[in-house]
């Protein structure tokens, strides 16, 4: 949507499109500068905690027995 607005503006107002574009850039940067940030150490700790808490529910990580995984082949059985 952002880039759509910019291209629409440049086709309408040829003279002031550079100004409008610059203004939008500044407003965009102000938004980005104003967001709250946390330290990487905290963010990493949270990611690790999420992995740890959910690891037991992750079949690809823990590996589940062949009998429970519909994709793994069961032991071959003979039909008598």
């Amino acid at each position, binding site marked *: *949507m*952002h*880039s759509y*607005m910019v291209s*629409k*503006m440049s086709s*309408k*107002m040829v003279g*002031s499109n*550079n*100004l*409008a574009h*610059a*203004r*939008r*850039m*500044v*407003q*965009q*940067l*102000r*938004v*980005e*500068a*104003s*967001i*709250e*940030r*946390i*330290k*990487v*150490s*905290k*963010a*990493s*700790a*949270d*990611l*690790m905690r*999420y*992995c*740890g*808490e*959910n*690891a037991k*529910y*992750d*079949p*690809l*990580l823990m*590996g*589940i027995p062949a009998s429970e*995984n*519909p*994709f*793994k*082949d069961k032991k071959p059985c003979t039909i008598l």
Partner: protein
Amino acid sequence: MNYWTLALTSLSSAICSIPFSSLQVQPQPDAKMCDQTFLAITFGPCDSCGLNKPLMNIYLKNEPINYCSLCVELMACQGLATGETIHTLKAESESLKTKLEEERAKLHDVELHQVAEKVEALGQFVMKTRRTLKGHGNKVLCMDWCRDKRRIVSSSQDGKVIVWDAYTTNKEHAVTMPCTWVMACAYAPSGCAVACGGLDNKCSVYPLSLDKNENLSAKKKSVAMHTNYLSSCSFTNSDMQGCDKKANVWDMRSGQNVQSFETHESDINSVKYYPSGDAFATGSDDATCRLYDLRADREVAIYSKESIIFGASSVDFSLSGRLLFAGYNDYTINVWDVLKGTRVAILFGHENRVSTVRVSPDGTAFCSGSWDNTLRIWA
């Protein structure tokens, strides 16, 4: 930050489809997944001119404001009257960029893999191809799992969209699209329809019927015309690719681009949210995958090896987010330990580029689609 799902009504009011652009959608963990979604564009009186029009939600001096598009243009050009020039704006722009870099650097106190040193290392992984789905006549471009964890829809360059039963490898439905390069396909949450699109510039929804004799093409509904080809579509639960080096995060309520990350050295081909929603991973033509944390507002990990020189086309997380599966253009799939940054497995099997990788809804397996015309289920 609260990211809402993007929603779009249409004739069949089922899906959201987005043209080739860098857009991300947060999967809402609590929201009910359903085929019906709602229009999310505000319409009402403009805060500036008072007329009832479709509104853009923007921020002026950190205050949210609703202006119609004409008033936004007028507002943006009012700079001249208040003494702003290109120069002052450029100067402010540069100082804001520097400030942003400083702020981000201040919080960069440690690397993720350092914090993760105390985490137990993962054991040996034995993952093999358990099923091979053959039937497409040309490159497989996209695939999606059904919520029942056994059905898969895949689309191909030959214009065919096939629905498979992954347990038995039987084909349950096949639809021929009127165009080639069907680049996007998605399964409806209800399991009763599939959506797909490609060079025909629109997204079509096909209801799936159990009656084999029914002509599915006759029942299709067109949804969302675009001006460009459809590269990705989903039923409010997927992520959209970017076509440049930037990964952008959008607040769907305001339409505002709230965060932007530009550390990849080449095009980004795939973007996927981390299961908790606080981070996302990207796969790029620069042969690396990277992890970006949204709350730290920076890249926190790079997954790369000198021996990997081909681009990553598609990435997906395992259920806990500990593993990252990435498909590459050198025909392999690499499995990465997300926290430690190391590779835990490399999977061979495909005979051409891997174009798409998706973990099943219950996490018991993942499926890869390739330009070798096949799909493989790994577990």
